[in-house]
């Protein structure tokens, strides 16, 4: 090994060591979490108000023109009447799941109780699906923060399905020309001045539409009341003139799910049963996109590192091929 080669190898080794050393503390490479857009729209889902009627599921199917779902193992007793999808899927953008324990005596209790939980897109503040999509098929609105999908751009790689920490985007595996299915917060209805179909039909206001900032205040207010206190629960859109209904404040879990999870979302969940038991995963405050983009942007910033490496490689390859020719 001659001197210049040794020098290159040394500096290359130094560069590699320098590049990987910060990986030790992943925090160092993270970019900042993205911020909630100014007019972020969202939903407050209060599990204690939900009666499991699934009117929101049916309304969602009609509004978004997705077919009724009948899993094969339930087809024997379900002869075509009921939609019996068990979770969100390529045909179901929104569904209500039930948690049960022991004797299932009391609603919204973890021990010998049961509770409902709504499943659909949480419209993350810093969404993994938007970050991972190679063709910009997942888009987050800069103003309302709603995450939409553009099937004309989508190549069907399903990285969004793999990457979403909530398991929300779903691919239609049963179709020859399948596409990604995902709640887009009834963007098409909102353009016509309406609200998302699930919030529109919810009889108890368990799904409540509104500005995220207002919904946050509403959630905090419900938490500040004593269990048993009577409270006026809004329906449809928070702040509009639909009749409210009066009910007792239940025993809420003190944590409002969706505020900080994975960098924050635009959905707020109030529940009586701990979140993890309802399938809402425990997630860090940092968005996952902030790490993967942080690492990627550090390595490929302005393509400087790859170009520098290429320069070194060209130099060495040139010398090497020249020597081969001389030897020949």
């Amino acid at each position, binding site marked *: 090994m001659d001197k210049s080669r040794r020098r290159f190898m040394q500096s290359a080794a130094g560069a590699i060591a320098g590049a990987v050393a910060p990986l030790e503390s992943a925090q160092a490479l993270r970019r900042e979490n993205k911020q909630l857009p100014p007019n972020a729209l969202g939903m407050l889902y209060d599990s204690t108000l939900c009666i499991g009627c699934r009117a929101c599921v049916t309304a969602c199917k009609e509004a978004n023109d997705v077919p009724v779902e009948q899993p094969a193992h339930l087809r024997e007793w379900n002869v075509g009447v009921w939609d019996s999808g068990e979770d969100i*899927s390529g045909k179901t953008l929104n569904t209500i799941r039930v948690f049960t324990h022991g004797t299932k005596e009391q609603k919204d209790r973890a021990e010998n109780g049961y509770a409902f939980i709504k499943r659909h897109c949480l419209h993350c503040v810093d969404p993994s699906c938007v970050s991972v999509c190679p063709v910009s098929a997942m888009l987050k609105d800069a103003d309302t923060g709603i995450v939409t999908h553009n099937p004309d751009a989508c190549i*069907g790689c399903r990285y969004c399905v793999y990457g979403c920490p909530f398991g929300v985007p779903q691919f239609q595996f049963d179709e020859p020309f399948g596409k990604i299915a995902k709640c887009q917060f009834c963007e098409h209805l909102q353009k016509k001045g309406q609200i998302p179909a699930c919030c529109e039909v919810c009889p108890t206001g368990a799904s409540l539409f509104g500005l995220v900032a207002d919904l946050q205040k509403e959630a905090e207010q419900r938490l500040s009341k004593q269990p048993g206190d009577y409270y006026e629960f809004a329906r449809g859109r928070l702040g509009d003139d639909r009749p409210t209904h009066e009910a007792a404040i239940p025993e809420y879990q003190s944590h409002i799910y969706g505020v900080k999870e994975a960098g924050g979302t635009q959905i707020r969940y109030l529940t009586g049963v701990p979140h993890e038991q309802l399938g809402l995963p425990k997630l860090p405050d940092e968005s996952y996109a902030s790490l993967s983009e942080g690492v990627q942007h550090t390595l490929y910033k302005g393509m400087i590192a790859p170009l520098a490496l290429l320069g070194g490689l060209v130099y060495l390859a040139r010398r*090497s091929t020249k020597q081969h020719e001389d030897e020949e």
Partner: protein
Amino acid sequence: MTQSTHQPLGGRLLTKPFMLFALLFLIAVYFLATRFMFGLGSVTHLNGGYPWGIWVVVDVIIGTAFGCGGFAMALLVYIFNKGEYHPLMRPALLGGLFGYTLGGMAVIFDLGRYWNFYNLLLPWYAQPSSVMFEVALCVMAYILVLWIEFSPTFLERLGLTNARQKLKRFMYVIIALGVLLPTMHQSSLGSLLLVMGSQLSPLWYTPWLPLWFLLTAIAMGYGIVILESTLITNAFKLPSEQRILSKLSPIVGWLLAGFLVLRFLDLLTRGQVAPMFGADLHAFMFWLEILVFVMPAIILISPARRTDQRQMFLAALLLLGAGSLYRINAYLVAYDPGNGWSYFPSAPELMVTIGVIALEIMLYLVFVKKLPVLHGTRPA
């Protein structure tokens, strides 16, 4: 005839093994036709929790790592200036050519919306923050580079000496790109997992993923070089390349040893000792993987073992097995989407993967028999 000592092997093409591979390929074609008519779900066990199965992990992620022979050899031959390893270069490049070209092909039938594939190349759809975007462009570019790197073989066969000479003048740029591009996308195959967070077991989820994937890709590339050289020199009674291999082996052996040390240091610094000793599938697969990495490292480092052809053949299989296991573990075993989802490939899904590998071997045989890929002559 030409200035090179590479020669086509010649010989009959339609041998019995060749026909068997052809049959396996035809079975795969049948299931692929089903896939295109009735959707991915009609052939695979892919589901809402496991959107990526063996067509991604084996055909593309492991398949391209199997194609890293050309990359590993280019790194050793040109960059470390060991000209004497030249005879292994062309067969290694050929393996890369098929590993990557067929990996790229596999992407097409795995893509749910393959007819939109070209959107990756349209600037208004580009999403540079996406690791997938970088991998896609980088792999496409590398497939092109591989064909150019390999093209002297065609040019020699066709007797186009002039074109061959012209190409030779800027070949060093192509060679440099042939090292840069796999460095980029093989490490990015690890970066793809950085967004997974708590969906991956902490035994595999680390910010070092890109480096781990790069190092193991080089090890696998070297494994395929040993494998090719052993199989071909034995099958076609060519002069052994053992002497050359035993010089490269300690480099790769120590690389592996370094990787293993770093891997444990990382687990220690992240405070993930407990999951290593859990009584579950993750811990079992982790130690199995570590074992399969340690064994070839020992063979490659030990001077007595690395000169033994049988041990080297074993080392090659172990290198490829370890790297493959690492990839399957990181992408599928370590991954838990929750909600009770599970995945194991269906028989048709496996047959498609097997068929792709069969096609790769068939093409390899056609190429070494018809084109000047291999060094030296077959004794009469």
